[in-house]
């Protein structure tokens, strides 16, 4: 239920503790060598993500927050870009777990469903199925990973005034 997106990231990925227990350590180690998160992969403008990692995060955010009927989509409020900027401020130490998590996410159809597919190349409804698999997994690492990404994405999106009209929230009494 954490709220400030930057701190959610720091608490989740800066301490390098919760994801590194049990199966989490193994999966993160695997994620660090999977395509989509290789150490040598080109990253631009000093950002924490390569283009492929950026695509994975955008794809996840777009399924978490697809928008519609008056609600802006995640991409319209630049949710993935905001998360990336926050991670950049935290530095490489804090972002490596997040990058590994993205790689595991990208390859989770193969890792957890024995389907030789990548998350970003699935149809939207199949992507939703993969995300649901993380949310309800018997593996604690996956549930925790889902919660961490969901929290930061949802709190980033709904802290923005542009999201409020769709849910009927009139906003604070005080003018900004």
């Amino acid at each position: 239920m954490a709220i400030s997106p930057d701190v959610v990231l720091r608490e989740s990925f800066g301490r390098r503790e919760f994801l590194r227990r049990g199966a989490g350590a193994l999966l993160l180690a695997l994620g660090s060598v999977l395509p989509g998160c290789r150490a040598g992969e080109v990253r631009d403008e000093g950002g924490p993500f390569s283009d492929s990692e950026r695509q994975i995060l955008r794809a996840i955010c777009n399924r978490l927050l697809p928008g519609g009927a008056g609600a802006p989509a995640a991409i319209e409020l630049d949710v993935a870009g905001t998360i990336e900027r926050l991670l950049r401020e935290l530095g490489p130490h804090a972002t490596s777990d997040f990058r590994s998590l993205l790689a595991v996410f990208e390859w989770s159809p193969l890792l957890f469903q024995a389907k030789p597919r990548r998350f970003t190349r699935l149809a939207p409804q199949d992507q939703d199925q993969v995300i649901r698999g993380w949310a309800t997994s018997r593996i604690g690492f996956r549930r925790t990973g889902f919660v961490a990404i969901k929290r930061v994405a949802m709190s980033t999106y709904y802290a923005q005034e542009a999201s409020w009209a769709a849910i009927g929230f009139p906003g604070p009494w005080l003018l900004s």
Partner: protein
Amino acid sequence: MRLHPNVVDTSEVRGLMRWEAEVAVVGSGAGGAVSAKELAEAGIDVALLEEGGYLRYSDFNQRERDMYRRLYRDQAAQATRDLSINVLQGRAVGGSTVINNCICFRTPERVLTRWQAEFGLEALSADSLRPYFERVEATLGVVPIVSAEVNENNRILLEGCERLGYRAGTFSHNRKDCVGCGYCMLGCPYERHQSVDMNYVPRALDAGCRLFTRCRVEEILTEGGRLAGVAGSVLDEGSGQPRAWFTLRAPLVVLAAGAIHTPALLLLNRLANGSGQVGRGLALHPLAASFARFDRLIDGFVGIPQSAYCNQFETLEDGSDGFILEGIFALPALFASICPSFGEEHLSMMRDYRHLSGMYAMIQDDGRGTVSLGEGGRPVIDYHLGERERHLIRRGLQESARIFFAAGATLVTTLLSQPLVLRGREEIARLEELSLRPNEMALFSAHPQASCRMHADPRQGPIDGYGESHDVPNLFVADASAFPTSVGINPQITIMTLASRQASAIRRRLGRPPLL
């Protein structure tokens, strides 16, 4: 805004600062503010140290994106190691009293009786504490919430309970002329929330106490085995990183940094732990929320967020500890982060935002958690629900659903990642099947406690019945970590009452008249 002249400006401090006082109080929340005021008014030279900033009403802008950052410990992201329970605490002058919902309960007699019988704390009777309760309540201006102040969200709880014949009521609170904006948890911009920064802290300052903000205590100083003061970092307001250092020499120290950071500080300094119990016994009062949809508009974000409760299950049929149900609501970013599911299903629930009513079960848990030291000496919270707590959560969610349906809800949902939606009371039994593995359901805590417990026996608790260390004379604890067990109710009045009683004892020791 011009601050009191006894607020020491640390914004320009560089290098190593050296300060002195008769008493150092670490933390300015419910415990520390009371200590500072009650000691300073006896003419004692008190230095009050606060890690957070001194925000005033004009700083509170009702924006989640700003205020969680500025007012909360770890900017509202503090959590158990596995992220399964979010532990909310304030970090500012006034501590958690600035961001709580002003709920005022006296310590239940059944709890005091247990503390007397099982922890050797015979002096902690309801009768002996009564004058301290009264003094605290008078200082805060505690009054009952009247019917006209109960918003629609909380009225649903009362209506449901009435139809079911459940015992329920409205809280007493420390607000004055509330305007009902609903933003209590982001700090009150209208100065109606009577948090300790509105009463105890100003009175401490008027009495000569000096307040040092953005000062993080990291070291407890001893010399020749005797307590000598504290030391730590002065934090930069922008980055939160250390910018300077300080030592504060004081022969008596009151720790009131909260139930996570007080034990962490003692562990870091390898002090006062002859019992081996520092950091052990942590209780969290896990909060398990559910939300219900009503056809009419509820607008739970308007009005006093928490005004009604049900204490039918405070103790269960077999006499064991149970739970209290309290009305609750959340602003959009917070609610969205705990709202079940994702994608279109999540958006569909968010679209019902104005039609939702919220309630949580606050579990009186066993002290099965621990505070230990992690990377860089940072506190790490480990807490796992036991079978008793899981049972109470299931039961609490079932009773919440029963109340919602009795009040006319069309559906009830829990905060499971995979939504579990109940469409009628005949489906309530499905909640019995919840496994409640970590991170299956959003759980949170606003009441960490009992991690440095009072016990008459030095082998079984680090501090005695006045909160003084068994091992280190003149080292006191004045926050919720001192509770022997969880209290089962919102704890601010208990913290402040015990701190008042402790301050009276310290006054006597320092040759000043006692409080009462």
